[in-house]
């Protein structure tokens, strides 16, 4: 640990020395904000067209560009905002903050758009996806509930699991291999209601980025993807808000200044009301109820241009309740997530920007049962979960226009509670069991985004990760490289390599995101998972047409991935007493995974008509010594073809139309091909041969389900009112009511002496209409 700090201090020293390197150069630095709200804008391109050099703003809107003395003109551009060109005659360092105006659709002509577009082909980074928050609000959503993760599922390389589920399967990896971060805090269970909805409806978010390969070295800890979400800071100029009323939930977002231009807040909440609506229809003696809620809150304070403080948090809960008055029985179960982040930005000088974060994250699943019967009583409380405390230091250093350097250090203490059980009843001694297991995960990283020879952009980085559990400790170097070579001004070839390690694992065999899924630590017996990925691709911008085109091929090999052993079940809760002795390590087995494929994306991010077409061709195979007789098999969500067509058309100021069509090869299921008679052996040393049939599986995942497809459509009607804009939205999920499979089971019919087995497909979502009302002020 001490060594890590030394490295940081060393890097700091290098920085201060670098400052005075060339006296004929000067630095332009500052912050880019949104006009009207004061919201800091990350990812804004600041470009010098003559020198063909540029930088982008960091996560906190900061930029710094060092140029030789003389006349310069810089272009500030960002998708969805009007481009600003600013000129200087540099004779000294300049501090320049700028506000960009959101551009309105009506203004959009082809010429203007050409200016606005940031070029995909120029970025050294590959395998990234950005979804404009606006399209999340405009695309049709299941039951009218906007869902960030479900919009990401529409992108190539990102797949959904089973019907309606929010989990992301990125390049063959499962939802457990995604690093989902909200304001630097890891979100452990990003789902409501068994995964049918995600925690993120987008109302409180400023940006969403997804990395599926070529990971920058500032990210680590998961094998397959990084979903980075940042909450809005809150409007610094005026009080703004919106509320929405939908079929199953309502939401409200409020943001505004506390002290104008200095501090602001944001609060955004959502709650379902099936429980309240169904109450009058239920037997008062026996009631069941379910609800979930989300609450995002953020506060920020600008002490000076160089020091800013952000405090943000997320709280969410799902809860089931059963109350039986007749038997004096009540049962509560649910799960909750909470994250809290405190960040302090400090700008050391005009080239060095630092951020310190203290992060707390918690996920907890619980069951409580109480039963009273005259003089007897029984109380049970079960919980499992994970709790994290992290400390992070991140620095952005801009020594010259050719180099943007990021480095930092982080450490996290994970506390796992695989199962804690408390039982009290009238007869036996109270039982109180449950152990907390602590582990530490730390990393140092350094990355440099280089623009060399005008044509070659490279992001090279290195991450050293460390994990300690008890006496066992793992240390792993993780080299990362991503590069783009511009063959033409708007056409580049890209390549990347990344090595990842994952030290904590999700035990889940349901595959549908049940809250009983359990996070566990790597131990001396269960090794960390690791992966290596290479990708090669092309990116082309058609500037006049406002289109971005990319084609990528990837190959990913993962080691020590974990899976349940045959026969293992997630219902470890079956017998509460057994959980004390249950060693999850005995239930899992390690193996290898291979994923490879190609992804194609053509996207139009700006204009009256926006959207994308994505196609993925992929293969995912697994091999475990203890599964499937040691033979390779295709993963459950191995998907040969996956396609999506997504469009949003702003017909007029009053009408927005949108639609999304998706197609995917069916999931794999394991079905028995034969059944046969079994034998039992008793402890009296007799055997009996039973006609009870056991299933014989030729191989795992031997049955490919029907392909999945559906179209979702929506129309939004906007109207300007005195106090704001109201929107009615009508949408159809699965508009042509395709009977997509959710799962299959074998149904037996008996007639006389005869039995017939049939395979039965269960579909859960036929056509589902929904309506929502929204008001923005």
């Amino acid at each position, binding site marked *: 640990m001490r060594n890590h700090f030394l490295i940081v201090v060393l890097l700091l020293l290098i920085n201060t020395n670098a400052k005075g390197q060339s006296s004929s150069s000067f630095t332009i630095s500052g912050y880019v904000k949104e006009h009207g709200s004061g919201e800091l804008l990350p990812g804004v391109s600041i470009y010098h067209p003559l020198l063909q050099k540029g930088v982008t703003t960091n996560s906190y809107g900061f930029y710094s560009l060092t140029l030789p003395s003389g006349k310069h003109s810089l272009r500030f551009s960002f998708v969805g905002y009007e481009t600003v060109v600013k000129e200087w005659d540099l004779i000294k360092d300049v501090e320049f903050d700028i506000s960009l105006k959101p551009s309105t659709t009506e203004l959009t002509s082809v010429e203007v758009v050409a200016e606005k577009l940031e070029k995909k082909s120029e970025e050294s980074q590959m395998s990234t996806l950005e979804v404009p928050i606006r399209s999340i609000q405009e695309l049709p959503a299941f039951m009218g509930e906007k869902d960030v993760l479900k919009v990401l599922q529409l992108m190539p390389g990102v797949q959904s699991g089973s019907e309606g589920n929010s989990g992301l399967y990125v390049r063959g990896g499962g939802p457990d291999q995604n690093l989902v971060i909200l304001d630097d805090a890891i979100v452990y269970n990003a789902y409501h209601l068994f995964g049918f909805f995600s925690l993120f409806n987008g109302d409180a978010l400023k940006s969403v980025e997804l990395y599926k390969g070529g990971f920058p070295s500032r990210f680590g800890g998961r094998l397959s993807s990084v979903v980075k979400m940042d909450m809005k800071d809150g409007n610094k100029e005026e009080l703004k808000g919106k509320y929405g009323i939908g079929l199953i939930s309502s939401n409200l977002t409020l943001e505004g200044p506390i002290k104008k231009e200095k501090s602001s807040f944001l609060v955004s909440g959502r709650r379902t009301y099936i429980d309240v609506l169904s109450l009058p229809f239920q037997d008062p003696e026996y009631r069941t109820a379910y609800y979930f809620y989300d609450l995002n809150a953020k506060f920020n304070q600008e002490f000076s241009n160089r020091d800013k403080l952000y405090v943000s948090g997320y709280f969410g809960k799902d809860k089931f309740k059963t109350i039986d008055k007749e038997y004096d029985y009540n049962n509560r*179960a649910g799960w909750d997530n909470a994250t809290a982040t405190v960040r302090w930005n400090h700008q050391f000088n005009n080239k060095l920007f630092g951020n310190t974060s203290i992060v707390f994250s918690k996920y907890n699943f619980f069951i409580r049962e109480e039963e009273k019967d005259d003089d007897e009583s029984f109380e049970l409380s*079960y919980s499992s979960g994970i709790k994290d405390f992290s400390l992070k230091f991140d620095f952005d250093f801009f020594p010259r226009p050719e180099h943007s350097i990021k480095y930092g250090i982080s450490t996290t203490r994970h506390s796992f509670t695989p199962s804690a059980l408390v039982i009290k009843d009238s007869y036996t001694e109270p039982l109180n069991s449950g152990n907390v297991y602590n582990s530490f995960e730390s990393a140092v990283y350094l990355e440099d985004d280089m623009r060399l020879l005008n044509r070659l952009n490279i992001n090279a980085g290195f991450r050293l990760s460390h994990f300690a559990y008890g006496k066992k400790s793992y240390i792993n170097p993780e080299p990362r490289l991503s590069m783009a070579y511009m063959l033409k001004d708007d056409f580049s070839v890209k390549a990347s390599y990344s090595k990842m390690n994952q030290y904590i694992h999700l035990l889940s065999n349901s595959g549908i995101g049940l809250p009983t899924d359990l996070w566990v630590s790597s131990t001396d017996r269960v090794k960390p998972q690791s992966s290596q990925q290479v990708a090669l691709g092309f990116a082309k911008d058609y500037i006049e047409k406002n289109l971005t085109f990319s084609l990528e091929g990837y190959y990913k090999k993962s080691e020590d991935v974990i899976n349940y052993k045959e026969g293992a*079940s997630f219902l470890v809760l079956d017998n509460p007493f057994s959980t004390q002795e249950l060693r999850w390590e005995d239930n899992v087995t390690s193996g290898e995974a291979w994923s490879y494929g190609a992804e194609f994306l053509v996207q139009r991010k700006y204009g009256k008509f926006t959207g994308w077409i994505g196609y993925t061709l992929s293969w995912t195979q697994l091999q475990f010594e203890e599964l499937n007789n040691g033979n390779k098999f295709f993963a459950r969500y191995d998907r040969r073809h996956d396609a999506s067509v997504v469009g949003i058309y702003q017909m007029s100021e009053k009408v927005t139309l949108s639609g999304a069509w998706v197609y995917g090869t069916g999931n794999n299921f394991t079905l028995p091909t034969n059944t046969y008679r079994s034998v039992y052996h008793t402890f009296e*040393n007799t055997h009996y041969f039973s006609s009870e049939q056991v299933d014989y599986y030729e191989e795992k995942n031997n049955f490919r389900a029907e392909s999945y497809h559906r179209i979702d459509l929506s129309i939004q009607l906007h109207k300007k009112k005195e106090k704001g804009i109201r929107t009615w939205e009508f949408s159809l999920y699965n508009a042509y009511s395709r009977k997509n499979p959710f799962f299959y089971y074998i149904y037996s019919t008996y007639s006389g002496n*005869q039995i017939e087995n049939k395979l039965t497909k269960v*579909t859960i979502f036929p056509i589902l209409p929904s309506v929502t009302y929204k008001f923005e002020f």
Partner: protein
Amino acid sequence: MKKTIYIFLAISLLVLAGCEEVVEPDKIKDSKRFIVVTSLISPQSSEILAEVSWSRPVFGIVPDYYENPDIIDNAQVQLSDGTTSVSLIYNEDKRLYTIDASALPIVTGGTYFIEVTVENQTVRGECTVPDLIPIKEMYLSSKNGWEVDITMSWEDNPDQTNYYRVGGYSLAENDRSYSNLYFNSEEFKSDVNRDGMVISAKGEAYLYNQHGETNRVKGVLISSDKNYYDYFKNQNLYSSDDPFSEPVILGSNIEGGLGLFAAYQFYEEIREF
């Protein structure tokens, strides 16, 4: 608590009222049937038994469901120790192939082969008899008047992989079995990571005499080959009422067919308590 989980599932499925449809799984529908051979051999058994049957393809019609149409009564069943070979004879009453153990003694360390021919199709199995491992200690302690905790321990044979299964009964009058000894997750043990060490398993049982009189408890230690262990351990995991459990493959060591040909040693001991 399982109830709670089912309440979850029931609510969510009610909310999301599903619909069902019968489909035809082409590839799986055409799967063939296999010859199933099941035989367990042990030096402690006086008779050698084997059952031969057909497996049933999962989809399609099974006539005479209750009449055991699967049993094959015209197979040729040969058992050999590598030098001597004997034929097992079909017994109409038991619906099994049998022979007296004296015809081919089953001995510790011996390797045996089974060969079954049905309609010109032959399937084979092979197994080796492990060592007999005695119970070293059996420690009983009363929880209350009617339940008892049991700890059974034994010494593992070093330098070989050994597989164990533990169980037994609490006994009533005339040593009649009264209640099973429940070892739950400790019923099956192997010596992986504890080769040559003393291995123990914890279990519990209900007592027959609940008023302070002497009770008798029978402990059993089965030492087996891997085939036996895999099959019965997985059989224990087999739970048809858990829709989310991973499919269980019982494991078959019958080449060309399905089933089990396995060897074990049976050791029992009675303790008074």
